[in-house]
């Protein structure tokens, strides 16, 4: 399948109150791939993602999602773009006053004119997809952190988006749960052809799921590496990138602690 970009980020500059986090960055995400945004703590990975889903307005640049710029879109045009994407937040962000089923039902109730039984069925199927069909009546506070994240994925998929954004899916999870989540991501990507954009710095997860990564760096305020993670680990000419993939401390950090 030829690589066809579904997201294009162009000449993108962002930051807070005059403090620039990243300057003039450009990259694109291809349809159907699992794309991972990497970077050390404070490099602005989550910020970049929040800009890509239209929560924040960048200082300059554009984010094209399936051809439409989310930065300038407003009203119905914006809602049309938002319907194509699903987002799983770091904390899950499930609505605490609703059961899992109600959480998944919500976008369906708001956007479709299906009747109650049909919505129930669709929502149950989404929960089944993430292995939580037995917990549909539970409140978010009654299930574990890993389950909350899976439920959040189910909610994000309620309207069958073409792109799923996941913010730190494996943060705070044990290795087994985290590996299960990786399998789920791969399964969804391969069977439903969903494009994934994932923010993480969990190496095991990156090797397991990522087709392509970009790596942000706070010193250069830009992208310092782009490509297949295993290739970058072995062949990158940037020592910092190689060290990140090998999980070694950077030379200057070692000097500071010696």
């Amino acid at each position, binding site marked *: 399948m030829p690589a066809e970009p579904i997201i294009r980020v162009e000449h993108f500059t962002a930051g807070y109150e005059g403090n620039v986090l990243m300057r003039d960055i450009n990259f694109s995400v291809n349809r159907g791939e699992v794309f991972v945004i990497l970077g050390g703590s404070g490099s602005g990975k989550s910020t970049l993602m929040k800009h890509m889903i239209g*929560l924040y307005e960048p200082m300059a640049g554009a984010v094209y999602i399936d051809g439409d710029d989310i930065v300038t879109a407003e009203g119905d045009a*914006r809602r049309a773009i938002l319907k194509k994407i699903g987002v799983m937040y770091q904390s899950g*962000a499930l*609505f605490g006053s609703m059961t899992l089923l109600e959480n998944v039902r919500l976008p369906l109730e708001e956007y479709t004119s299906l009747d109650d039984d049909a919505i129930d069925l669709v929502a149950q199927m989404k929960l089944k997809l993430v292995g939580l069909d037995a917990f549909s009546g539970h409140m978010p506070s009654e299930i574990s952190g890993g389950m909350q994240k899976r439920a959040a994925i189910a*909610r994000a998929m309620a309207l069958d988006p073409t792109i799923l954004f996941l913010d730190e899916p494996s943060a705070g999870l044990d290795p087994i749960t985290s590996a299960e989540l990786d399998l789920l991501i791969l399964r969804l990507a391969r069977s439903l052809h969903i494009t994934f954009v994932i923010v993480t710095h969990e190496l095991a997860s990156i090797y397991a799921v990522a087709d392509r990564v970009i790596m942000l760096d706070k010193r250069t305020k830009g992208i310092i590496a782009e490509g297949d993670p295993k290739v970058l680990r072995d062949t990158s000419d940037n020592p910092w990138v190689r060290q990140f993939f090998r999980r070694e401390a950077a030379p200057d950090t070692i000097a500071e602690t010696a």
Partner: protein
Amino acid sequence: MRARRTIRVDSVSTAAAARMAPSPAASLAVSDVDGKRELRLAGRLDAYSIAGVWPDARAALDAAPNVPVLIETSRVEYCDGGGIAMLVDLLRQPRRPEAQVSVVGLKPQFQTLLDQFDPAALRAPPKEHAERLHTVAEIGRAALIVGRDLYLQIAFIGETSSALWFAITHPHRVRWKDVWYTCEQVGVNALPIVALISFLLGIILAFQSAVPMRQFGAEIFVADLVGLSILRELGPLMTAILLAGRSGAAFAAEIGTMKVNEELNALTTMGLDPVRFLVVTRILAALLMMPLLVIFADLIGILGGALTMLSFNIPISAFLHEVDSLVDVKDLLAGLAKAPVFAILIAGIGCLRGLQTQTGASAVGISATRAVVSGIILLVVVDGIYAFVYYLLDI
């Protein structure tokens, strides 16, 4: 019993001793030799023992500003982070070039700890006086903050009005389940506290006015006083203040927590407007419940007054008859007309403060506080406007 008491006294005294008394193991001797001052430190230098010698060492150092100071530490047996901090503090004091401080004789393992720090880099910055703004600048800045807040509130009023209008014109799009649930929270669950306060208010009003009125044999007019003031003013106002304290704060905390948990972001990226979703349901609930609460408060307040007057030998029937003869439906409506406005104000400000929540747990508390405070301030202002308008219109 006795044994337990002994143990307790013991544990308190040892804990206190450990905390208070410096370990005797640190010592300081000061001597002046050949135009140099020598501070001899010995024993254990740890976080507990240095408290006894640190001030003396600093004093000895400061007392000799013009001569070199030698800190002799060869008899220090133990030195941890606390001891190193004391040495760094002595080394970092700004001194003349000819009167430098030096540490000698420190055991190598402690010397490596000390070498990690550059005393000059840890020099205490000269105490800056907090930058004092010019009075005019201060006023300008405060005005800017108030102006920005005002702008946000006006924008919010506009957003909420359009969302409310949308709700009225598209009632099937309102999440009525949430509205009814909030009605229960705001209305039904508030009945006991509203009853308590209005009853108390009725009693106090009646009793405090009955005592002086009795001197003129005019106790019966207490009924008019209680009836008028509760129906026109106190009923709606007290209910509104209770609503601000209960529900305004609750709205701010609920929405604030949702914001902290990224739930608001989740709504936004689903393309769902948080104002329509969270604010409209709450304002509708408050709007529906507030008039009912006010009527309830009016009734209970008058009942409180009537019961009090029983002790002044005025039967309930006489009290109610007197209320009926002077107090008009117009007065009830004048009070009730405030209810919807108060409801929108309190629910609106509670939701606005919730939406304005910054990040972190304390931010939620701040939002709840701000919701109550600004809610009550607005109530007072609006109640004043009502009084003025009623006076002008002779209502």
